[in-house]
C-alpha cells in the first residue's frame, strides 16, 4: 500500500457567525487508502466535506493536494483538480430530466475544451465506457427520474468516477443502497484503492466501515478526537471517541405482546405477490427488515391508508380496518412516521411546535381557534422527554441537526396516544446517540400500542425490536423472536430465493 500523503489538511478552521464549526482540523489522506470519517450529526463532517469540495472556504488553515496548495473556490475547480465528492443527497448528483448516458458524461459536456456540439453517439460511447468500468448494469437511455433511488445513487457515483479522481470523498453513499448494490460499490472502492486513489469515506454504518476502512478518524465538536490506524482497527474505540462517551450495547430484553391489537389475513401488497398474515400486539416492538425495494414502504403506507391492499382483510382492536386515507388512519389511532422526513414529514416554514401539532390540530383548536399555549406545552414536554437539542419550541426545524429533526418527527406521533405506531426507517441519517434515544423512547412508551418499525439495517432491528419479521418480494417470509435468532436462517430469508446473499453478517448485536 502506498504511504505518501496525497492530500494534507493543516489547522483548518471555519465558523458561521459566532459558532465555531471546525476548530483546527489536521488530517492526511494517503494514496491507496480508505480513511473512514466518523462523527455524530453536527460534529462538522458536512462542513469539512464542503470545504474540501469547494462549496465553502475555510477561515484559516491550509490544504495541499500533491505538492501544491489546494484552495478551490468552486466545486468545479475542486473537481478539475482531482478532488471529487459524491454527496449524500442523491439528487444533487444527477440531473433528473436527462437520460443516464448524458448524466454519466455531464461534466465533460460542460467542462473546458468541450465541444460546442452535442454528439449523442459520442455521448453514448463514452457513457458505455464509464458504465463498463463501474460495472453499472443500467439502461443508458432511461431518464434518471425513472430510476429507483439506489440506481440514481449508482449513476451519481459512476459520474464522479469519470473524473479519474486523486481524492474521492464519499458522503454516506450507502444510505439508500441495498446490500447487493452496496457490495458492488465496495468492490469498486477496492478497485479505486488499488489504483491509488485516496478515499475519504463518511458513514454512520459500522458494517461499511468494518468492510472498507484502512484507518478511522473520529470527529467531535469540530475537532479530531481520535485517529485509529494500527491493526486490528479499534472500532469500539473509534465510536466511543466520536460520541465522547461509552454507549451501552443495548441488549434487548424481548417483551411478549400482552393482547393482540392488529390482525391482517391474506394480505396481498401488489398483484402477484404471495399473501401473508400478520398479528401485532400491545407492548411489543416489531421490526420488519428486508432489502431495499422489497415492499417495506409499500406495506407501511398501506397500513396508513395511502395505498389499498390487492386482497386481504385487516382488523384493528377487533373491528374491520380499511383506512381510506391518512386522515382516516389517524382518526382510528394508526400513526406513521414516514420515510424521508424532508419530503413527507417536515413542514419547513413551521417551527418545532407547529410541526409537532400538525396532525392533531383539531385537538388543539376548540371552535377551530388554535390554542398556542397548549400546543407549546405539549411540544415542550416532548422536547424534554426525547432530549431534543434546541433553544426553544419556537425554533425553526431548519436550525436543528438531522438527528434532532428526526426526533421532532417521532415526537410528533408520540405526542398523542395511538393504537398502532408505524415507523419507516426512523434512523435514516441519524447519529448513534439520537438513535439510542429514539429507540429507548419507543420501547419505553410501547405498552398500550402495537409498534411496527421498518428497518433495512439489521443491526438496528436487533438493537430495537422484540420480534423481527423478514420481508422479501412483497411478502413476509420469516419471523424471529429477538434473543433467540438463528442468524443464518434470517440472512437467508433476507436474501430471498435466488437472490445474492448479504455480503457480510453484522459482527455485533
Amino acid at each position, binding site marked *: 500500500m502506498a504511504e505518501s500523503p496525497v492530500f494534507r489538511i493543516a489547522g483548518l478552521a471555519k465558523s458561521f457567525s459566532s459558532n465555531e464549526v471546525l476548530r483546527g482540523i489536521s488530517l492526511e489522506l494517503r494514496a491507496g487508502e480508505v480513511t473512514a470519517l466518523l462523527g455524530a450529526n453536527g460534529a462538522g463532517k458536512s462542513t469539512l466535506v464542503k470545504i474540501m469540495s469547494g462549496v465553502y472556504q475555510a477561515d484559516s488553515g491550509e490544504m495541499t493536494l500533491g505538492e501544491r496548495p489546494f484552495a478551490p473556490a468552486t466545486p468545479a475547480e475542486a473537481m478539475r483538480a482531482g478532488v471529487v465528492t459524491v454527496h449524500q443527497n442523491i439528487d444533487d448528483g444527477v440531473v433528473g430530466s436527462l437520460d443516464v448516458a448524458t448524466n454519466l458524461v455531464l461534466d465533460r459536456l460542460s467542462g473546458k475544451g468541450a465541444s460546442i456540439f452535442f454528439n449523442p453517439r459520442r455521448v453514448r460511447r463514452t457513457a458505455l465506457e464509464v458504465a463498463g468500468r463501474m460495472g453499472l448494469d443500467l439502461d443508458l437511455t432511461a431518464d434518471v427520474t425513472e430510476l429507483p433511488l439506489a440506481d440514481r445513487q449508482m449513476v451519481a457515483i459512476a459520474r464522479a468516477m469519470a473524473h479519474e479522481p486523486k481524492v474521492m470523498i464519499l458522503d454516506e453513499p450507502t444510505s439508500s443502497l441495498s446490500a447487493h448494490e452496496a457490495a458492488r460499490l465496495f468492490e469498486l472502492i477496492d478497485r479505486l484503492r488499488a489504483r491509488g486513489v485516496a478515499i475519504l469515506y463518511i458513514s454512520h454504518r459500522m458494517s461499511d466501515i468494518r468492510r472498507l476502512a484502512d484507518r478511522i478518524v473520529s470527529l467531535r465538536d469540530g475537532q479530531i478526537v481520535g485517529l485509529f490506524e494500527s491493526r486490528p482497527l479499534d472500532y469500539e474505540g473509534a465510536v466511543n471517541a466520536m460520541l465522547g462517551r461509552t454507549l451501552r450495547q443495548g441488549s434487548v430484553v424481548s417483551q411478549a405482546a400482552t393482547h393482540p391489537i392488529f390482525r391482517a389475513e391474506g394480505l396481498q401488497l401488489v398483484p402477484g405477490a404471495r399473501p401473508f398474515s400478520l398479528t401485532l400486539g400491545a407492548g411489543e416492538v416489531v421490526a420488519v427488515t428486508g432489502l431495499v425495494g422489497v415492499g417495506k414502504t409499500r406495506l407501511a403506507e398501506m397500513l396508513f391508508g395511502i395505498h389499498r391492499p390487492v386482497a386481504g382483510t385487516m382488523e384493528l382492536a377487533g373491528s374491520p380496518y380499511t383506512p381510506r386515507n*391518512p386522515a382516516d388512519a389517524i382518526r382510528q389511532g394508526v400513526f406513521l412516521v414516514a420515510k424521508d*422526513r424532508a419530503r413527507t414529514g417536515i413542514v419547513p416554514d413551521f417551527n418545532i411546535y407547529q410541526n409537532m401539532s400538525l396532525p392533531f390540530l383539531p385537538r388543539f383548536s376548540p371552535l377551530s381557534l388554535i390554542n398556542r399555549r397548549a400546543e407549546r406545552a405539549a411540544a415542550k414536554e416532548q422536547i424534554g422527554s426525547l432530549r431534543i437539542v434546541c433553544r426553544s419550541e419556537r425554533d425553526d*426545524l431548519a436550525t436543528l*441537526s438531522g438527528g434532532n429533526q428526526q426526533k421532532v418527527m417521532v415526537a410528533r406521533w408520540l405526542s398523542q396516544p395511538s393504537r398502532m405506531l408505524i415507523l419507516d426507517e426512523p434512523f435514516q441519517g441519524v447519529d448513534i446517540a439520537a438513535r439510542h434515544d429514539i429507540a429507548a423512547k419507543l420501547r419505553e412508551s410501547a405498552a398500550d400500542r402495537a409498534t411496527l418499525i421498518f428497518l433495512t439495517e439489521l443491526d438496528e432491528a436487533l438493537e430495537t425490536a422484540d420480534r423481527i419479521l423478514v420481508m422479501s418480494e412483497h411478502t413476509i417470509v420469516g419471523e424471529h423472536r429477538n434473543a433467540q435468532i438463528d442468524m443464518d436462517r434470517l440472512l437467508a430469508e433476507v436474501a430471498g430465493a435466488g437472490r445474492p446473499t448479504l455480503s457480510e453478517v453484522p459482527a455485533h448485536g
Partner: protein
Amino acid sequence: MDSGMAQEPPASLEGREAARAGLSPREIVIRYGFLLLLAGLIVFFSLATRGFASPQAAVFILQSVSITGILALGVTATLVVGGFDLSIGSIATSAMMAAAYAMVVMEQNALVAVLICLAIGALVGLINGLIICYMRVPDLLATLGMMFLLIGLQRIPTEGRSIAAGMTLPDGSTAEGTFSPAFLALGRHRFDVIIPDLVPSSVVVLIVLAVVIWFFLEYTRFGRMMYAVGSNPRAAEFAGAPVKAYKIWAYVISGVFASIGGILLAARLGRGDIASGNNLLLDAVAAALIGFAVLGAAKPNAFGTAVGALFVGVLLQGLTMMNVPYYTQDFIKGAVLVIALVFTFSLLGRNGR
C-alpha cells in the same frame, strides 16, 4: 422543492441560529426594513409637500388602495397554499359588469346584485380550484386561461358595450333599470370619524377584510393547515390534511374577495365600464408579493399584503403631490416590486429557492 432542507449541514444552520440570538443590524433590516422605509416615506412626503399629513390625504390613500388591497388579500390566500391566481382582476371586472347588468338590465335590487357577484366569484374560484387540483393544470396556466375566458365572457351580454342607466340594449330597446342608491352607497358613502364624511365605506370594507383574513390565517386551524399545504403538501397529506380541499378553498376565497373588489368598483363608478380595472391584477399581485418582505416573513401573509398595498398607495400619492408625472406610476410600482422581491429572496433566502 424543499427536499434539500434536511440535508443541509447542521453546522451552518447552527451558525444561522447563533446569528439570530441577538438582533444584528442585518436582522433588524430584514425584520423592520420595509416598515421603516414606509415610515420614512410618510415623514418625507409630509415635510416635502403641503397637505400630505392630513386626515383627508390619509383617507384618500386608503381609498385609492382599497380595491386592489382587497384583491391582494384574496390572492394572498392562494399564495399561502403554494398557488397563484391570475384571474382576480378579471373576476373583479366580471363582477362589476354582472352587478351593473343585474341592476340596469334585469332591474334587480342591490342585494340581488351583490349576491350574484359573490356567487360568480365563488363559482369561478371553485372552477379554478377544480381545474388545478383535479385536472392537474398548473396554477398559473389555469388562472391565466380563466382570465382570458372572463375578459371575453363579460363582453358577451352587452355585445361589448359598457353598461349605464338608460343605455340602448342589443335588441334596440332602452334599459329601464338604474343603479340602486343602496348599491352606490357601498362605493360612495362616507362615515363620520371625528371629521364628518371622512372614511369611505370601501376603506371600512378593506380594513374589516384585512383583519378577518389575518385572523383566519394566523389563528385558526384552517389557516395553519393552509400554510402547511403551501410549505410541504406531501407532509401535510401524511399528517392527514385533505390537501386538495384546502387548495380549492383558497381559490374560492380568492374569487370571493375579487368579486367584493368588483362590487366596490361598480359602486364607485356607478356604471359597468368595460375598460376599467386594467391595473387591478398587477397592483394586487404586487401588493401581495411586496408583503413577503414585511417583517422578514418571506412567506405570504395578510399583514404584509396590507402593508404592501399601503406602501404603493403612499408612494404614488406622495409622488403625485410632488408633481411627478402620472405616466411614471407603473414604472415606480414595478421598481418597488422588483426591489421587494430581491429583498425577500436574496437577503432572507430562507427557503433557498
